[in-house]
């Protein structure tokens, strides 16, 4: 039962083959057995989960259930949920209990999902390995000595290990797609503005977007349909008619033009990943799609542009953590300035401090034009590259990550090497486009490889249709990591 997709569980619930309470107990028992090793969830609330499961069962009994009623899920620990701890993987917020619900928490609760807990993450969503959490690293269910990716590494590991059938995440530079790829599951980062950021702790506001992890494109469509939609409380939420993101799941892909950027299968990609991605392209070609080569000439500059823009926005967003209104407060500070400094220095980890300082630097007098404005101009070039490529193709495909999951505590790591993990995902955030990662093969040591599909803005339904077509003729998305007895 735990290996079923959300769509399959939904049928089982509505046919009364299982109750939500039974299902929730099943996943809670898996959490009790496996989470200690994986460190994927930082908060689990059995009592509350079982209470909402019983409420879901009552809705099911009254035949008032929707497709997500009674489905257990976890939230990345940067979504506020009233009465639950929202830590953001930081000492700064280790004891912060949110006084309100994030928009997507409200939406998913209204859809009847059962919230079982909060997922570990890189501190303030800054990281690509989930080694930056105050609560310790998350382990990859495929190999506990390796990272699950980040920053939504806890959500990804929890879904991959079937501790929950689905989990929310956020993606600023790859934080959903990269961990989805490294743990062998599916993840979607929607178009910027599709899902409200209300109640999601901000990292870099012009890039942050909420999304979701699950085991199939069909599941992503069900969850995204429940999460997305206009919210006046987020100034960048886009006002559009509600969408059924599953409407194109069964659309044929014959004649579809798949653009493969010549930069995406070149030097920067390890051979095992390139091989798996070429295999996936062959499968799609076999289904009638056509591969065309496209070029994204400014991609090379996307990662450095991101590491100016994101830290700049972070330095502003994280100025709110001052030890006064919420979060960690240093003891015994003699004056206000030292209260701020000491609370921040004690409460924020090294990578977060680094990014705040970089952001402060690039925004400071004398450097603003050379760094920050120049990065925003490069951002335009990166977005224009995509617009030109989409004149020749309908979707863009390539690897999600340059390698399979790497070891925890990789020696000699310098910050820039870690930043380059997001080479293929960052450009998509800069341009605000939707991106999906789906498992498409096994690389070195049998570890999962992710295929990234990128669409024009608001083309999520098409991307999910392509992913679904692929999953109808392959079974990579059904493979599960080995389980210890």
């Amino acid at each position, binding site marked *: 039962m735990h290996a079923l997709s959300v769509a399959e569980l939904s049928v089982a619930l509505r046919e009364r083959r299982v109750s939500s309470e039974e299902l929730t107990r099943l996943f809670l028992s898996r959490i009790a057995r496996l989470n200690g090793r994986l460190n994927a969830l930082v908060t689990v609330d059995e009592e509350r989960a079982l209470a909402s499961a019983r409420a879901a069962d009552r809705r099911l009994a009254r035949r008032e259930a929707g497709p997500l009623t009674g489905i257990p899920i976890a939230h990345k620990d940067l979504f506020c949920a009233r009465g639950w701890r929202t830590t953001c993987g930081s000492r700064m917020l280790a004891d912060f209990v949110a*006084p*309100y619900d994030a928009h997507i928490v409200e939406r998913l609760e209204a859809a009847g999902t059962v919230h079982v807990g909060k997922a570990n993450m890189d501190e303030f969503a800054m990281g690509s390995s989930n080694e930056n959490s105050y609560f310790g690293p998350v382990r990859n269910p495929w190999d506990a000595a390796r990272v699950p990716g980040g920053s939504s590494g806890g959500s990804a590991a929890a879904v991959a290990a079937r501790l929950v059938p689905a989990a929310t995440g956020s993606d600023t530079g790859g934080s959903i797609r990269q961990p989805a790829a490294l743990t062998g599951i599916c993840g979607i980062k929607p178009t*910027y503005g599709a899902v409200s950021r209300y109640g999601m702790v901000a990292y870099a506001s012009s890039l942050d977007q909420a999304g979701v992890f699950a085991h199939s494109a069909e599941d992503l469509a069900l969850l995204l349909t429940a999460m997305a939609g206009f919210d006046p409380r987020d100034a960048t939420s886009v006002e559009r008619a509600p969408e059924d993101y599953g409407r194109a799941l069964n659309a044929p892909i014959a004649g579809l033009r798949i653009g493969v950027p010549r930069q995406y299968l070149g030097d920067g990609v390890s051979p095992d990943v390139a091989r798996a991605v070429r295999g996936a392209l062959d499968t799609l070609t076999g289904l009638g799609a056509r591969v065309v080569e496209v070029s994204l000439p400014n991609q090379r500059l996307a990662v450095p542009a991101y590491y100016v823009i994101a830290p700049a926005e972070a330095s502003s967003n994280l100025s709110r953590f001052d030890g006064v209104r919420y979060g960690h407060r240093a003891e015994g500070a003699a004056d206000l300035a030292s209260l701020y400094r000491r609370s921040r220095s004690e409460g924020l980890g090294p990578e977060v401090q680094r990014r705040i300082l970089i952001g402060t630097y690039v925004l400071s007098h004398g450097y603003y034009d050379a760094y920050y404005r120049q990065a925003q101009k490069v951002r335009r*070039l990166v977005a224009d590259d995509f617009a030109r490529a989409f004149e020749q193709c309908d979707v863009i495909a390539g690897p999600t990550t340059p390698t399979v999951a790497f070891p925890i505590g990789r020696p000699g790591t310098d910050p820039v090497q870690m930043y380059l993990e997001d080479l293929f995902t960052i450009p998509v955030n800069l341009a605000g486009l939707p991106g999906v990662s789906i498992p498409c093969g096994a690389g070195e040591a049998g570890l999962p490889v992710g295929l990234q599909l990128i669409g024009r803005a608001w083309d999520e339904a098409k991307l999910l249709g392509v992913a679904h077509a692929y999953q109808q003729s392959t079974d990579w998305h059904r493979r599960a990591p080995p389980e210890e007895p």
Partner: protein
Amino acid sequence: MLSTEELRRLCELARIDLPADGGAALQHDLDRVLGWVAQLAEADTEGVTPLTHPGDPTLRLREDRVTEPDEHEAFQRTAPAVEDGLYLVPKVIE
């Protein structure tokens, strides 16, 4: 290269303590990152308009009316030090 004086100034602006070791490792990391992002200068951006947000959205206006209930107390429950509905900070005026 970031000078020690520049690092001290940055820490001051960001309200972060200079590390106890004087910040040599931090200085090294920041140099590494800033040196690497400096390659952005190579891009020909003559006449390019900066992109601040995807889709170049314009900010929405809304009606000027109260939409939020008073949740003063709930919000202050998360504060480390509060008295009589006020946030407490170290003395700022002698």
